[in-house]
């Protein structure tokens, strides 16, 4: 069609401005879509910190607090759960598996978790992935420790290294330096708080505290490692536990059982629900970021509008010619809206393609550095809606100049003077 061909020739004639405008739109599309990808990636990674678990239990507290100290290792528990209560609860028929967590010690700023081998068998993250060993194996000896990926890489530890554990979570706390641990295994990276944890057996936690009372060493007592290995050392208390049930349907009932447990005040929280609540808090920053990139899109749309508007004066003649040949004012206006639409579509296509190219390259790096897995999937519904909004914005950007052209063609008719 001649009109369309001439419109394209017109664009080609202004290729420098046209290219820059398309580039501006592409960059804004990349930014908006990229922020949205990172946002949903971060949300999914966050929500995937624990997966497959049905309930996290601990001493009575708010759900978020419980999740913070048990899963994210932020803050401390106000109270412990006695081993007897724990055993009582996990012996219930609904329970498929349970992972006890005993917190309170640390190693150079990283938390030490006392647990059982079930930790490595049942803890899941990001849609059902289980923990894998990058090197070595789970703890076997009383003084074996399994390191998270970050701990090993930051502190440059490898299998067989000896480390000591500090009492309390401050790095300057008193050391259990008489009883060094041997690194028996190093976990593969997960992008979750597991990477920043050291794992020992529950018995080890008891063992290093045998000679301690109320947070300090009892003077004169120094039970040797070999002697400790012979001692029975039943766990007295844990901090929290992660529990998987045989059936999802039992969660609500089981949660009530925990919350109404008579022997001591306990809380049970569904991790998915609490993670969503927490995301509501930290997600605000992401929303702000999305807002900023939306502004960038608006700016590029204004640029598009200004670009077309600035050509309008040069196009007086063009408009008069088209009108004289029988083009309706609507056709003239439609050409300008069409131009804006075409540039926006080109910008969206290029921006989206460029973003995916960047994602493919950067995905492993981002996952390694920040533990955020940005899936390289086709655009989600949200992405598609954002792109649609940009397209509509682009068409709207053409409306102002088009209205100007419409008015101009009605007012000036064939008169070419400006």
């Amino acid at each position, binding site marked *: 069609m*001649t009109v369309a061909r*001439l419109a394209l*020739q017109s664009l080609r*004639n202004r290729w420098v401005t046209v290219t820059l405008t398309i580039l501006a739109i592409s960059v804004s599309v990349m930014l908006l879509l990229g922020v949205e990808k990172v946002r949903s990636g971060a949300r999914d990674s966050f929500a995937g910190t624990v997966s497959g678990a049905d309930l996290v239990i601990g001493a009575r507290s708010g759900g978020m607090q419980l999740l913070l100290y048990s899963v994210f290792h932020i803050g401390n528990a106000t109270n412990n759960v006695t081993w007897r209560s724990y055993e009582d609860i996990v012996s219930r028929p609904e329970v498929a598996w349970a992972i006890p967590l005993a917190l309170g010690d640390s190693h150079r700023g990283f938390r030490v978790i006392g647990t059982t081998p079930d930790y490595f068998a049942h803890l899941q993250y990001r849609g059902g992935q289980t923990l894998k060993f990058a090197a070595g194996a789970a703890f076997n000896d009383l003084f074996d420790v399994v390191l998270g990926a970050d701990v090993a890489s930051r502190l440059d530890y490898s299998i067989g290294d000896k480390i000591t554990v500090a009492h309390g979570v401050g790095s300057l706390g008193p050391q259990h330096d008489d009883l060094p641990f041997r690194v028996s295994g190093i976990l593969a990276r997960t992008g979750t708080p597991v990477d920043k944890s050291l794992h020992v057996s529950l018995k080890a936690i008891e063992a290093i505290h045998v000679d301690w009372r109320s947070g300090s060493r009892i003077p004169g007592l120094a039970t040797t490692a070999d002697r400790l290995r012979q001692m029975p050392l039943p766990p007295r208390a844990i901090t929290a536990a992660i529990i998987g049930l045989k059936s999802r349907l039992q969660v609500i009932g089981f949660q009530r059982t925990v919350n109404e447990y008579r022997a001591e005040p306990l809380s049970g929280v569904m991790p998915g629900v609490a993670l969503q609540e927490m995301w509501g808090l930290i997600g605000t920053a992401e929303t702000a970021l999305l807002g900023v990139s939306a502004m960038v899109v608006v700016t590029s749309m204004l640029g598009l509008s200004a670009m077309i508007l600035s050509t309008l004066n040069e196009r007086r003649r063009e408009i008069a010619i088209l*009108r004289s040949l029988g*083009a*309706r004012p609507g056709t003239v206006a439609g050409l300008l809206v069409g131009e804006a639409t075409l540039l926006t579509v080109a910008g969206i296509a290029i921006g989206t393609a460029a973003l995916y190219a960047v994602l493919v390259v950067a995905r492993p790096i981002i996952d390694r550095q920040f533990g955020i897995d940005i899936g390289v999937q086709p655009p989600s519904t949200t992405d598609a809606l954002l792109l649609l909004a940009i397209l509509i914005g682009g068409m709207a950007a053409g409306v102002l100049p088009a209205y100007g052209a419409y008015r101009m063609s009605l007012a000036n008719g*064939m*008169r070419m003077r400006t």
Partner: protein
Amino acid sequence: MNLEGATDAVRLRGVEFKWNTRDAFGLSISEFQVLRGERLLLLGASGSGKSTLLSLLTGIALAQAGNVETLGQRLDKLGSSERDRFRAEHFGIIFQMFNLLPYGAVIDNVLLPLSFAPQRRARATAAGGTDSEARRLLSALGLPADIGRQTASTLSVGQQQRVATARALIGSPEIIVADEPTSALDDDRQQDFLDLLFRQIDATNATLIMVSHDRRLAQHFTRVVEVNDILRASKSGARA
């Protein structure tokens, strides 16, 4: 000569018109008529209202009072898009200069009016296809055979006027309107241009309405009219 309505190419009666812009230029015409097949020269200085008159009789502008009849059709009876279509079908228009879309290929500039005029497209197709009809006109107007693919802005002013003429003639519209088409050309080229234009107009039997300030052109036309004799141009607030 038959003075029935259908034999009039254009007929204006009691027309009052004023542009809806700041300069508010306006004009009034009590009676003006162009017969079919006539070659009319409208003589007038610039600013006398010639372009406004052309806007009126091609239906780009609509008179506030009186009636404008073209080929027996009252333009004020048509809706605005019907009027645009009517203009596309029945008029070929050549301007003083800047006739072409400068970035467009010559051939696309020539074919452009057919996008808005199905009847003209049908006639051009019947005459051997739109592209070959465009090429035929271009070469009949003395342009080189391969000019179609060139970009309009690379052409000389004289060549551009010929391309604009081919565009006005394609699909054989009934009325050719030319607004000072020769004023940008030097004397020799003026003569060449007019010869070519008249030859093509003879071939299609079209009516020619040309406006100019140049009296020397008068010899080529069947009738010469002074613009000032048919209209009283007025600036806002100073109507005669």
